[in-house]
């Protein structure tokens, strides 16, 4: 069974490039939506024991608005936006809605849709794989609780989990959040082969 370290430096930097391009595309789409400049941090590739994974994303009991988009196809994965509640409120405010209303919830799902759609498009362009995002799902709850299922999927057969994390913030607004790409266990190898490094 695979154990850490599962991947070479070259493989990890190839994976990081996915996040660079995917998040860049997603940020452009978000910028057009809110009419502001979007800042994206340097994406980090996290390859950590399952026990440490959730706390790498944020404080486990913090309330977040999480938009999960399962991605089906050649390399099954999850894309997850995790917005701390104050950031979710600011983002909905920029779009003229309230994060705690039904309209606000649809709005957050739509943002998830746009970001994950553009991320997936970039990923398909880079790899030539067939990938299809499903409709986004929203949960407002503890961070730990909304990430455990997707982390579980990534670590079914291994004790380490690999995911890509990027911090996104909206210029001139108190709004920043995490954008995660979590490939399922076997999907990492598929991605690496498609990128030509495995």
């Amino acid at each position, binding site marked *: *069974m695979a154990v850490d370290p599962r991947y070479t430096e070259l493989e990890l930097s190839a994976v990081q490039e996915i996040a660079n391009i995917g998040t860049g595309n997603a940020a452009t789409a978000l910028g057009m939506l809110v009419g502001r400049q979007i800042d994206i941090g340097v994406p980090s590739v996290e390859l950590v024991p399952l026990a440490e994974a959730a706390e790498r994303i944020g404080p486990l009991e913090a309330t977040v608005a999480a938009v999960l988009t399962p991605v089906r196809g050649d390399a099954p994965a999850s894309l997850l936006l995790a917005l701390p509640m104050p950031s979710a409120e600011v983002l909905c405010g920029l779009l003229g809605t309230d994060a705690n209303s039904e309209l606000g919830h649809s709005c957050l799902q739509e943002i998830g849709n746009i970001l994950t759609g553009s991320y997936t498009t970039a990923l398909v362009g880079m790899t030539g794989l067939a990938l299809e995002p499903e409709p986004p799902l929203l949960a407002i709850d503890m961070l730990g609780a909304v990430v455990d299922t997707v982390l579980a999927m990534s670590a079914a057969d291994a004790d380490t989990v690999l995911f890509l994390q990027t911090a996104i913030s909206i210029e001139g607004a108190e709004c920043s959040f995490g954008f995660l790409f979590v490939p399922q266990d076997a999907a990492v190898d598929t991605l690496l082969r498609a990128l030509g490094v495995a």
Partner: protein
Amino acid sequence: MTGTRHMVRMAEQVVSANCDDVLVSLGLGSCIGLALVDDAVGVAGLVHIVLPQAPAAGAGAASAKFADTAVPSLIDAVTRAGARAARLRAVLCGGAHMFGNAGTSPVMQIGARNAEATMDALNAARISVRGKDTGGSSGRSIEVHVANGDVLVRGVGQQARKL
């Protein structure tokens, strides 16, 4: 002895016989927090279960990760720490379905499958269940007080409830 708050993270198990200790798992979604306590001797254990079944071919994976291996492993650990199997009481929480309307995708049913597999393993080991708060669509945190075997469960913005 001074007490410690032990964080029991995904696929981890902690057992304590120190009556000042508190065992904690924060933000359980589809995962299960399973506590086994023997309050007659002040021994308790908490395991953070992630998935229902260990893969068939000995994966060498952490036994705490899977319900079917985590339950026997925790029973073994608490009895080695001084608990008597016949006196053990189980309290479990978690197994939620966090993202509503996820349809029939088996991936999304993990919470329910985790809860079921944990109950099956407890029944197989003839451990009686004192309290259970599983399912639903909200996250939970669990806190086990070794001193008196109290188990507290709390959701977002809720008061802790004793199980």
